[in-house]
């Protein structure tokens, strides 16, 4: 139906609407001129909302996290468009598409059969690079990708017909036309109205530069599932260098050297041409940035653009020599026996003293290497990932004096006898990566089901939100049941606290809890542990005590491991067991793959048990450095941040169980520390609301009683009519006076 939100006509493709959705739209409408920070339960609605603005906002960039989520958004969009077309009767030229990696989009028969994303990228590049294609002209036996050729020849002139394209649609379209879907999509995002892709395409400077830099300034950017956005930002700016990296880099340098000397004999003019270009400097890029065509790249700082590449690395040989020196220096640094932590300026000073490398040429390293690789016509870029990494490191370390730290560890903490030196160049300030995004786009919306507490996000990402609001869920029945279990039946406190985590009684009580729950919860149970090691210890101990055997009489047990293939196999079998009535338990790890990207709807997750509080590994030096930085720069206390981080992950795990209003599930927090106000207060509002005093610090028996009662209540027939008027509204109900008042209370301005 059609809604009128403060003078704005919104087309809504369903017959019923949740009150929170309406409230969300209201908030969105009021503040859609700048940055917004939101905490909704229903997120897709923002894309619906956007559509009401086909004129004011030229483009919507919707970033989500996983491929299934991207596909879900596009399907939702398709429904909206169908509805819109039916309502207005106007066939509009509207283009929306999803973009993913080559691995998900490739239709080349050989390339697409490769298993790993990196292999696909490398192979694709070796078939589509410009000089390969040039060689193909003279030498037809040189293989090229016919899909790319076809696209390059015809595809650019003919715009892709308007419509909604999901990943599969793009592939189909590509096959029909014989065009490469990946390059088609990348080209088409420039004039598409809605782009849906992973947020690495926008935040990771290395990729963003290729894909997203030409996005129009008037775009609206939405980050969905953004509770982890600071970690994504940090990861994208951090570099880890091991001895292996350096070894591979060494071979890269040798290859470079050989290629240079060969080219010098055959085609010296080419190198001269490059030299001339470098003297002129990167003026072109600078012009482009000034005229606002490109999204700025945080790796490539502004000053570089105004200067010419310094003379010392202008010729190819000098540059290779320079890299070699740098490499030797890094090797020497890794040959240490104690942990070193230093800031970027300290590092630069040391490098200047030891091998006389100046700051300035270092800063041009990344740009210079790219230019060289282009000139040398090296086919397989994937082989050069090591040297590219080193060059990025060089540029970053010489550009940013603040917000980064260098930590060199000679061995891992767990295996102090095995030398495995790592150089962590760690970013501590997520705002560096996201700054260009905030700076460039008209509106940025950050939204997730578990952004809590809200006020910490603006602080760590360093922006001033225009509006922040969190929404509750209005429910016709209380379909979630959070319980905090603090003690076993023997009254021993249950906690994963470091001092007591090896305690026999605690492990046994955890086992009993799982055993009891497996007897009363139907179908699927998902249990989360704080880490892989902890899980291994506990499961081994359960096995010895015979608890595992007892559990297996009720349900099958599956375990998440660090191996992705193994885990997806376990997941598949887990779902099968839930489906056919055998019942299953999935043991997994908070912060693991399962906790982040996989939904356990309905019977796949009737209960989630969180064993312990998922704190990060606090002994890590990187974390310590980051905490220190947060304290000094943003006045965030270490403990606050750690708790915040643990609770968002706990909420994330527990939230896997409830994916809609007809769904229901138990949420069991098995640690007495959850009952404390500082932990409880950091849970999302929609969970906190249902956490009454009666559900704190329970014993296992009490938990079982409450759960049984809850499960029976929830199994009663629940029809749409029961929801109507309470949590599901028709248009008439929406417009009634008291409902509008209720809705006004849903959004809580933070």
């Amino acid at each position: 139906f059609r809604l009128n939100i403060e003078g704005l006509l919104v087309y809504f493709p369903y017959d019923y609407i949740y009150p929170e959705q309406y409230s969300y739209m209201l908030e969105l409408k009021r503040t859609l001129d700048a940055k917004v920070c939101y905490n909704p339960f229903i997120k897709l609605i923002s894309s619906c909302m956007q559509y009401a603005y086909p004129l004011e906002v030229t483009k919507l960039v919707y970033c989500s996290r996983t491929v299934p989520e991207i596909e879900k958004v596009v399907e939702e969009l398709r429904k909206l468009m169908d509805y819109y077309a039916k309502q207005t009767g106007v066939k509009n030229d509207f283009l929306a598409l999803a973009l993913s990696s080559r691995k998900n989009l490739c239709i080349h028969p050989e390339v697409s059969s490769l298993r790993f994303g990196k292999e696909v990228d490398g192979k694709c590049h070796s078939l589509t690079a410009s000089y390969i294609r040039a060689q193909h002209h003279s030498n037809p036996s040189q293989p090229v990708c016919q899909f790319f050729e076809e696209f390059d020849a015809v595809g650019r002139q003919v715009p892709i017909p308007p419509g909604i394209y999901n990943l599969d649609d793009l592939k189909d379209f590509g096959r029909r036309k014989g065009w490469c879907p990946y390059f088609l999509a990348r080209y088409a995002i420039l004039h598409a109205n809605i782009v849906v892709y992973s947020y690495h395409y926008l935040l990771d400077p290395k990729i963003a530069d290729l894909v997203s830099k030409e996005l129009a300034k008037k775009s609206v950017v939405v980050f969905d599932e953004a509770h982890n956005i600071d970690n994504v930002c940090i990861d994208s700016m951090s570099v880890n260098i091991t001895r292996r990296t350096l070894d591979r880099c060494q071979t890269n340098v040798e290859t470079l050297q050989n290629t240079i000397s060969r080219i010098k004999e055959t085609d010296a003019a080419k190198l001269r041409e490059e030299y001339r270009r470098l003297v002129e400097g990167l003026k072109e890029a600078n012009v482009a940035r000034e005229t606002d065509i490109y999204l700025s790249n945080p790796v490539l700082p502004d000053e570089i653009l105004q200067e010419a590449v310094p003379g010392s690395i202008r010729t190819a040989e000098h540059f290779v020599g320079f890299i070699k020196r740098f490499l030797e220096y890094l090797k020497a640094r890794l040959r240490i026996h104690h942990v070193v932590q230093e800031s970027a300026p300290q590092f630069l000073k040391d490098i200047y003293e030891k091998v006389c490398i100046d700051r300035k040429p270092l800063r041009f390293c990344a740009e210079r290497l790219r230019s060289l690789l282009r000139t040398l016509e090296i086919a397989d870029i994937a082989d050069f990932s090591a040297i590219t990494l080193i060059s990025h490191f060089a540029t970053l370390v010489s550009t940013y004096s603040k917000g980064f730290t260098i930590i060199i560890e000679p061995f891992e903490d767990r295996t102090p006898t095995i030398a495995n030196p790592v150089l962590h160049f760690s970013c501590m300030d997520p705002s560096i990566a996201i700054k260009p995004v905030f700076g460039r786009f008209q509106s940025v919306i950050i939204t997730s089901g578990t952004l809590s507490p809200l006020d910490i996000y603006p602080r760590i990402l360093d922006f001033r939100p225009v509006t922040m609001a969190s929404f509750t869920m209005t429910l016709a029945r209380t379909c979630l049941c959070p319980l905090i279990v603090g003690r076993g039946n023997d009254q021993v406190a249950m906690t994963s606290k470091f001092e007591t985590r090896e305690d026999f009684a605690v492990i046994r009580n955890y086992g009993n809890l799982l055993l009891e729950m497996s007897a009363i919860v139907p179908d699927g149970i998902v249990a989360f542990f704080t880490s892989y090691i902890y899980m291994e210890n506990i499961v081994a101990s359960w096995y010895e005590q015979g608890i595992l055997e007892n559990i297996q009489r009720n349900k099958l047990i599956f375990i998440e491991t660090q191996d992705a293939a193994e885990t997806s196999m376990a997941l598949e079998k887990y779902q099968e067991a839930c489906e056919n009535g055998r019942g299953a338990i999935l043991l997994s790890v908070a912060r693991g793959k399962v906790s982040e990207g996989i939904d356990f709807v309905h019977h796949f997750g009737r209960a989630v048990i969180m064993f312990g509080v998922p704190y990060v590994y606090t002994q890590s030096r990187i974390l310590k450095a980051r905490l220190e930085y947060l304290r000094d720069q943003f006045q965030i206390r270490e403990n606050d941040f750690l708790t915040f981080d643990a609770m968002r992950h706990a909420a994330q795990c527990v939230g896997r169980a409830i994916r809609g209003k007809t769904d229901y599930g138990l949420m069991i927090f098995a640690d007495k520390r959850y009952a404390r106000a500082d932990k409880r207060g950091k849970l999302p509002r929609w969970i906190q609301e249902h956490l009454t005093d009666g559900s704190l610090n329970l014993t296992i028996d009490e938990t079982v009683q409450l759960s049984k009662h809850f499960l029976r209540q929830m199994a009663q027939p629940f029809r749409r009519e029961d929801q109507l008027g309470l949590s599901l509204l028709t248009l008439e109900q929406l417009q009634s006076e008291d409902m509008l008042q209720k809705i006004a209370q849903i959004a809580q301005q933070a």
Partner: protein
Amino acid sequence: MDEEPERAKRWEGGYERTWEVLKEDESGSLKATVEDILFQAKRKRVFESHGQVRLGMMRHLFVIIDSSRSMEDHDLKPNRLTSTLKLMEYFVEEYFDQNPISQIGIITTKNKRAEKLTDLAGNPKKHIAALKKAVDSTCVGEPSLYNSLNLAMQTLKHMPAHTSKEILVVFSSLTTCDPANIYELIKTLNGLKIRVSVIGLSAEVRVCTILTRETGGSYNVILDESHFKELLILHVKPPPASSSSECSLIRMGFPQHAIASMSDQDAKPSFSMSHLDSAGEPELTLGGYYCPQCRAKYTELPVECKVCGLTLVSAPHLARSFHHLFPLEAFQETPLEEYEAERFCEACQGELKDKSVFTCLACKKVFCVECDLFIHDTLHCCPGCMQTDRMS
């Protein structure tokens, strides 16, 4: 204590929070809603039977009773098994009372196997006796939904197409141990038009949801014992026949009951034909029902004649199921505030206190909720109308 040595002592049983049942919810959302939903469901039962639908009057029903380990749970008193069997006895009686020309059979499942307790038969006594015996059986292992459904299906698939074929599962466990893919079986059941309904004793299990949805049955989970009873009673009423089931005229015989006493010199004791395939000792009896076609003797009705295949029923039986075909029309519901005349229920003479009153459309008499339910469930005729009929 000697008479119940097996049963756990009260203090050994589960930790109960009896006050929870009586708890009044301040927030009012959960409890009130669920109760409201239950009330609506109660009303729905009355409504549903009033459409002009064809009903499957001849029912063949298999009841599958889970006797796995989970039946030993004490949340129904004294334990789930005893409580279930007791309610089943009541159910069987009610069932034959309301569906005199139908048959029932009982299957139990435990230890991954299914076992037939009684075959399809129309005699309540036999079933009740079997149920009484089953109380002493132990509950072990896991149930097998597949095996028990398969067992029921083997018998039901030979039943004529005009009868209503049903399975009712009382399922206590949360798991099932199946030898093959149960979804294939569900497809077959669907193809054979066998309707499967499930009453869950603990929580909603996915496979049961699918099973009932695919075969057109209902799925309910009990809240407590009285709710359990209510759910069972829902299955007493004949379900609407699926439109595709064929209509046919059925030949029926109405045998006379010949009474003979020992003092009668002419009477000769004889065997009943129904003993032919039963395992029990054949008994010589005097008198019985004689098939009007072939004079075969039976001691009980309804039955299908073993000799000539005629369906034998008694006329009163058939008449009893009559009311299903011509049900009493639903009364009109009006809120109490809008009702302005004297606030007395026509039937029980009590004051009308509930939030709505019910008016008979024919005689315009007013009834309370309880009487409305009683009239529609038990009496099947409006007392007000009867009175006016007599007056005129």
